[in-house]
């Protein structure tokens, strides 16, 4: 059966194309949850996990998961930037616009405004809305929930994904054109999840993300039945002043063996910076404070001022440049 499409469009030379989605559960009621990934065509973890989640939910509906029952309608859009996924392009490949800077969109506007409008219309009726990202090609994020100026229900429910970190961030001017911001105008509860790194598929992060989404559906009565796993992670809530960005003041080659999710002590070695031409060690990069390593640089080429890592602190840290950095990757 042909899946439903939220948008159909002609193309200049190739055949017409569409943006399809999964509409699972009773079509008599409004969807309770809408899940979106692949607004950026190079962020593959979310695309893969949402396709797998749709397969799982459909198998639940078909009675192939004993003891599991789907009680609500769920809309799943694995990839918004379809041509971007196929051509490995983060942005809309034709004109280079970032679809996540085109919201709320406009039905009679530019191509990507039309796409944004159609995605917003399809997801608007849901109460819970979840937008999944995977940073960018350079940086790896521990799977985490991001909240932007949340309300109390969002703060409470963000913990129900069971992911190690819930991180609260400030809005900035550029963010007013994202889907996350457009959703806020629609009410309900809205979450952004960051998981892993763009350009690659990371099975460990994918498994954790899949489990998090299913856990959230269970805890909110959308799925009924035994939970998939009982080994809950500790959930830590980090407020506005508990994110420390570690910035490099030196250029060169950055090398690190650390994985995301480590709890660091102040002074722990994070990596090294080498001179690109002479090859000598420029500096050891050490954690200035203790905390959870929630993200780390994977791109070795380092400019002055580049982000090396983010550390989530149990204590307040001075709010600094991070407000200017957090737009990168979303």
């Amino acid at each position, binding site marked *: 059966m042909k899946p439903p499409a939220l948008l159909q*469009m*002609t*193309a*200049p*030379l190739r055949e017409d194309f569409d943006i399809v989605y999964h509409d699972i559960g009773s079509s008599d009621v409004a969807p309770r949850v809408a899940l979106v990934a692949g607004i950026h065509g190079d962020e593959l973890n979310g695309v893969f996990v949402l396709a797998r989640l749709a397969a799982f939910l459909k198998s639940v509906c078909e009675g192939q998961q004993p003891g599991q029952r789907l009680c609500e309608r769920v809309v799943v859009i694995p990839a918004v930037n379809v041509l971007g996924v196929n051509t490995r392009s*983060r942005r809309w490949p*034709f*004109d*280079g616009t970032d679809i996540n*800077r085109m919201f709320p969109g406009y039905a*009679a*506007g*530019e*191509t*990507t*405004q*039309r796409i944004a409008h159609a995605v917003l219309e399809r997801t608007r009726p849901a109460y819970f809305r979840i937008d999944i990202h995977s940073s*960018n090609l350079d940086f790896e994020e521990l799977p985490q929930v991001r909240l932007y100026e949340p309300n109390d229900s969002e703060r409470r429910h963000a913990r129900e994904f069971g992911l190690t970190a819930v991180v609260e961030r400030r809005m*900035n*001017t*550029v963010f*007013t*054109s994202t889907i996350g911001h457009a959703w806020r105008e629609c009410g309900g509860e809205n979450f952004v999840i960051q998981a892993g790194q763009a350009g690659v598929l990371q099975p460990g992060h994918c498994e954790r993300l899949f489990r998090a989404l299913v856990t959230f559906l269970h805890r909110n009565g959308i799925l009924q039945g035994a939970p998939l796993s009982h080994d809950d992670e500790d959930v830590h809530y980090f407020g506005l002043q508990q994110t420390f960005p570690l*910035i490099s003041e*030196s*250029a*060169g*080659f950055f090398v690190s063996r650390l994985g995301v999710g480590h709890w660091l002590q102040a002074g722990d070695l994070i990596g090294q910076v080498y001179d*690109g*031409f002479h090859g000598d060690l420029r500096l050891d990069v050490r954690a200035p404070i203790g905390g959870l390593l929630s993200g780390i640089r994977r791109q070795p*080429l*380092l*400019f*002055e*001022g*580049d*982000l090396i890592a983010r550390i989530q602190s149990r204590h307040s840290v001075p709010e*600094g*440049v991070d407000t*200017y*950095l957090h737009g*990168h990757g979303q």
Partner: protein
Amino acid sequence: MHIEHDSVLSLQLPYRERLELRRTVVHGRPGPKVAVVAGVHGDELEGLYVCHRLIEWLQGVAATHPEAVRGRVEFYPALNPLGIDTLQRFVPVFDEDLNRNFPGHREGLLPQRLADAVMRQLADAALVIDIHASNIFLREIPQVRINEEFASRLVPLAQQMNIDVIWLHGSLTVLEATIAHSLNSRGVPCLVVEMGVGMRITPSFTEQMLTGILRVWQTLGVLAPEIELPALTHTPLLADGRNVHYLNAETSGLFIPEVEHWSAVRQGQLLGSIVSAHEGGTRSEVRSPVDGVLFTLREYPVVYEGSLMARIMAYEAAAQP
């Protein structure tokens, strides 16, 4: 008058090289400071050539009138130097639109450091002119775009700029991160010029802007009043939300225009067609919704549904400013 070249930001790159944000400064007798910035987007070249022509003109006038320049004229022809040198619109590596990173941050990522460095230099300018060249898709008649918030201060300056259109637009939160908004909101007047098309230089537009910029500088006292300038050749029409009509493609294909850029059009007139490389005939006819003047025309033929093909300013609501 003498000319100096320097760098307002120097950053180490991963392998050996450095990125320099280069500036040319024309020093005259004591007077106000003005600046021209260009190349915020690495694929927009019109402003670079305007910088060249202005510097050349100032050198020429100094040869006969050494006291002609009163003040300090700063040129930043390439705010996105790596983008210009590698033919990329956005800041290379960071894939960021530099004009969404203002006012920037001294300790931020490279795009924010570029923004911060230039903001610091321009803090005391009497006027900044930020020259854009549309993008590779659309050709623009020389125009100044002004956020309504700053209209009362900027429109009188723009009227002397020898342009064809002044376009007043509403406030958009996302545009608060542009250099123009950042400067204007700090009290430094900044005019945004749009002219021509990406990846090209349009010499007739260059000369038109040269005249306009020199006029405004003379009004501000940067050029001595006795210096004779080229005559004004253009008077702007006023565009705003009420009289600008957007023509977006109804279908995808190749857009073949039937009219010249900056021509008068009548309601119902055929402006162009969208055709297919796979078949004869026309997929979609593009007709003018109003009597007016075509001030934006698509240059790049391939269109998707929604691609902008033209903008028309209707005569009806348009008025002389």
